[in-house]
């Protein structure tokens, strides 16, 4: 898988290269007799000189590189969800449950369930860890000391999780289809993309918020586990919601994980885009995203919390 991604990145880079001489030439002809212009890298104007979108693409590229090279992240983000899907399907795949009035096999139930898990782990779980580590080791402070707008640094991290989660969801869809013959309608896949991006961003915002409440990198992992684990059981990830008592269902309902899972489950049984989305779920996810983002913006710190006076 990683070789595939690396290959794609290489392809993309190769496509970029022929454009570069064309970019540098007008720059060269308009060069003023300043010594500074001479120092511009041979690759052309810097990302910052090409505008905010170029800086965002630049940041995303390096954040992705960092993320894909982290062996623990690779395991947790890509391999672990696939492993879980295989284990759950071989152990309990034969059973049945009901989703939106339709009887389906548990094998079909686990695909959106594990997809939800991969979204939460890939965005919330990864960000709480990586942001806490980057902050406490001074990397965030050093990046913040440069002219790059802080919003771009945040967006780079958030979009990195969108890309990695997107890859994981695609792998899960492929494994479901090839391994278990569980297919999704094209409309449903489009709906999964919508729900997935919104849920990933919502979980990313909660991740930024939670990392701002954690004082040391050692505390990040336990906090992530303690907050995620109960929700797997209360949100229709491992166990269908219909198996839970009304009280437990209400608890699960308060958190974004259940709403991501619910919409993804709908997508597993419907053939149309509209039928695979639930307005309430999308609203709740958006509300969590906005609320967490606002609180995170207020609490977020670029400086290590151990900073001396």
């Amino acid at each position: 898988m990683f070789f595939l991604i690396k290959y794609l990145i290489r392809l993309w880079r190769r496509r970029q290269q022929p454009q570069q001489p064309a970019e540098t030439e007008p720059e060269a002809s308009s060069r003023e007799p300043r010594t500074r212009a001479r120092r511009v890298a041979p690759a052309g104007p810097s990302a910052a000189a090409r505008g905010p979108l170029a800086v965002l693409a630049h940041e995303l590229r390096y954040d992705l590189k960092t993320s894909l090279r982290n062996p623990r992240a690779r395991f947790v983000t890509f391999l672990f969800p696939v492993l879980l899907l295989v284990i759950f399907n071989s152990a309990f795949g034969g059973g049945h449950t009901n989703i939106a009035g339709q009887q389906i096999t548990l094998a079909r139930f686990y695909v959106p369930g594990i997809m939800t898990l991969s979204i939460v782990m890939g965005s919330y779980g990864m960000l709480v860890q990586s942001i806490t580590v980057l902050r406490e080791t001074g990397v965030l402070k050093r990046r913040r000391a440069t002219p790059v707008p802080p919003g771009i640094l945040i967006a780079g991290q958030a979009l990195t999780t969108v890309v990695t989660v997107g890859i994981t969801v695609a792998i899960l869809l492929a494994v479901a289809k090839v391994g278990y013959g569980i297919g999704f309608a094209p409309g449903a896949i489009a709906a999964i993309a919508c729900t997935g991006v919104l849920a990933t961003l919502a979980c990313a915002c909660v991740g930024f918020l939670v990392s701002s409440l954690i004082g040391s990198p050692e505390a990040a992992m336990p906090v992530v586990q303690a907050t995620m684990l109960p929700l797997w059981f209360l949100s229709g990830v491992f166990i269908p919601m219909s198996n839970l008592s009304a009280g437990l269902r209400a608890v699960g309902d308060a958190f974004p994980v259940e709403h991501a899972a619910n919409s993804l489950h709908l997508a597993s049984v419907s053939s149309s885009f509209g039928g695979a989305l639930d307005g309430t779920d999308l609203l709740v996810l958006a509300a969590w995203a906005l609320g967490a983002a606002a609180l995170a913006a207020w609490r977020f710190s670029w400086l290590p919390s151990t900073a001396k006076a």
Partner: protein
Amino acid sequence: MLTNNLDAAVAQRHAATSQAHDGGAEPVISIRGLHKRYGDTEAVRGIDLEIHRGEIFAFLGPNGAGKTTTVEILEGFRRATSGEVEVLGHNPWRAPGSWRERIGIVLQESEAEPGLTVRECLELYAGYYREPRDVDETLELVDLAAQDDQRASALSGGQRRRLDVALALIGDPELLFLDEPTTGFDPSARRAAWDVISGLRDLGKTVFLTTHYMEEAERLADRIAVIAAGQIVAQGTPQTLGGRQFEATQITFTPPVGASASDLPAAIAERAQPQPDGRVLLASTTVAADLHLLSGWALEWGLELDDIEVARPTLEDVYLQLTRESHDQHRS
């Protein structure tokens, strides 16, 4: 270690900086009446400082003296409680993004960018600036060209610090903040870092350096300020800090066998203090005259002064005295 690279860089840089240098004594940093309060504690209690273009300024002080707070205010990471702070013509707290194009920061504790190679780190940071320096040239400047393909996290401590300097230089800043750049270094890595820092002066950069090491300040700085308990307790050049130039020079020697302090020439004898180890200490403000008298006396008697030592109070002595005084004042 990097003189060759530096020479080339300096030559290129010359045309660009000579203009800037004509600006003369215009301050790059000016601080007036700076206070910073955290809740009930006042970390900085009224600081005035001025740092000029092209100088290396060393900011000394014990831990918790307000050093890091002051630097973080200058870097725009913290807001001053009161007082005026101007860095490159802007209040750092409200400075526009373009202001950061002109400063570079080497943080006291920062780790490498995880997962990236040395070159990728520099490329990442180069993308943040509108007119970055060339990556290869910067790698050579800090002598990391041979390591460009290594993961930054695999570098040795000294190499990591040089990478930090390179990251601070990649935007081609006018002003550099170096926060304890050599803390935790072995002596040879420290020497190498000093070469890099004094090289910055030749590039025409203004450097604001904080350090614990007196030797470092003495070696590198044009001017030094000492902060203790949130206040500047002394300011000056390494030679004049704390009235060091007026302090008596200490001449120590062992009197020849059979001679005692009272046998010394009269002008010296009254100032000579016998030490517990049998040597004699002479506090002197007229070193040449005293040494002349002493050697004349020794020659006359046909004696040798084997272990004579002439020493000025070290900067460390001055510093310890200054910070101790302030600590005691604060206690009482």
